[in-house]
């Protein structure tokens, strides 16, 4: 993970992790979620759903930081992210993502 300026309390920060739920049958394959995930977690799968679209799949689920952007952008209410409870603490892969989102909103 690349960062520009390491926060002073990096070792105390806890990075949130998200658990991605994809309701594949509801998806229309627009790829908004794939394109705008800041951590590049999702990709369109090659599999078809019953409507004939390619729903997304998590190619890198551990990297999800529960920013919730994919859930907000999805026009089909086909995807949501729940907070994954954390066991380990530390700065293994500190990411400013969630904090930045908070400041902006």
């Amino acid at each position: 993970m690349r960062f520009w300026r390491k926060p002073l309390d990096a070792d105390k920060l806890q990075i949130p992790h998200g658990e991605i739920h994809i309701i594949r049958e509801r998806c229309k394959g627009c790829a908004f979620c794939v394109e705008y995930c800041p951590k590049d977690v999702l990709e369109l799968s090659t599999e078809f759903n019953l409507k004939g679209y390619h729903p997304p799949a998590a190619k890198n689920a551990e990297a999800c930081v529960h920013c919730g952007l994919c859930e907000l952008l999805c026009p089909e209410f086909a995807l949501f992210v729940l907070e994954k409870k954390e066991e380990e603490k530390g700065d293994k892969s500190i990411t400013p993502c969630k904090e930045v989102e908070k400041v902006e909103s």
Partner: protein
Amino acid sequence: MSEVQLKKKKEELEEEHPMEHLLRMERMPHIWCPTCGIGTAVTAFLMALEKSQIPLKDTAIVSGIGCTGRVAGYVKLDSFHSTHGRAIPFATGLKLANPKLKVVVFSGDGDIIGIGGNHFLHAARRNMDLTVVCVNNFIYAMTGGQCAATTPITANTSTSPYGNFEQPFNLPYLAASCGAVYVARWTALDVRRLAKSLTEALQKKGFSFVEIICPCSTLYARRNRLGTGLDLMKFYHDNSVIKHGADLSELDIGFQSKIVVGKFIDRERPTFIEGVNQGLRGVLKEKFVEYGGPIDDD
């Protein structure tokens, strides 16, 4: 398909999306095309509804005709799907009959500004206590891609096959000059900022107006060879500029030009009901009875 696969699909569909309590799920999937941005605008609105903490049982949503006009039918609030362009007059009646209600108008540019333009002007002039959310996709979408009052110059529509050469409305400027007390514009890609703006608009007393620039893949993007809704989202990403309090006369949108977004107006003015109550109190003196809605019999 094997039974195992079918069972898996069924289980998946039974997973509950956190917004489902605000949606009429029996009507899903909605009619919007793949890569249409209206669904995203609705998600932002639902988020704002939750954040603003206004009681849902005292909230009503009104739409007119059009792709965005379907929103009232999908959101689980007291709702009404009015005739073309008449969402604002219906909402005005609703508000006057029961001033305790929070009334939201959620409709498209063709409906609110084109067909119902006159109602828009007068509701803003009176400072009717409504929140008007206008999804602007630059075209009459549901009716077949005709040229709208918001179509940018040179854009191709089904009624302007050589390009449109009429000057389109600048919606924030229009709303502000008519007297709206809250005016903002965001693209459908700015979901978080949009949700914040919608929250403020919902909490504002008086005529609040939020314009959402939104991709229409099937008609606007296809006719103008702009790709899909995702390509338009990418275009917004690269070409929208945030400028809070910008000079309203400079907010025109040209064909694939820069889009200035932000919050432009946030001011106070007596609402229609306040103004009338105040005026009549002065004239009628002790005979005056303040209007606050229908009289409870019990």
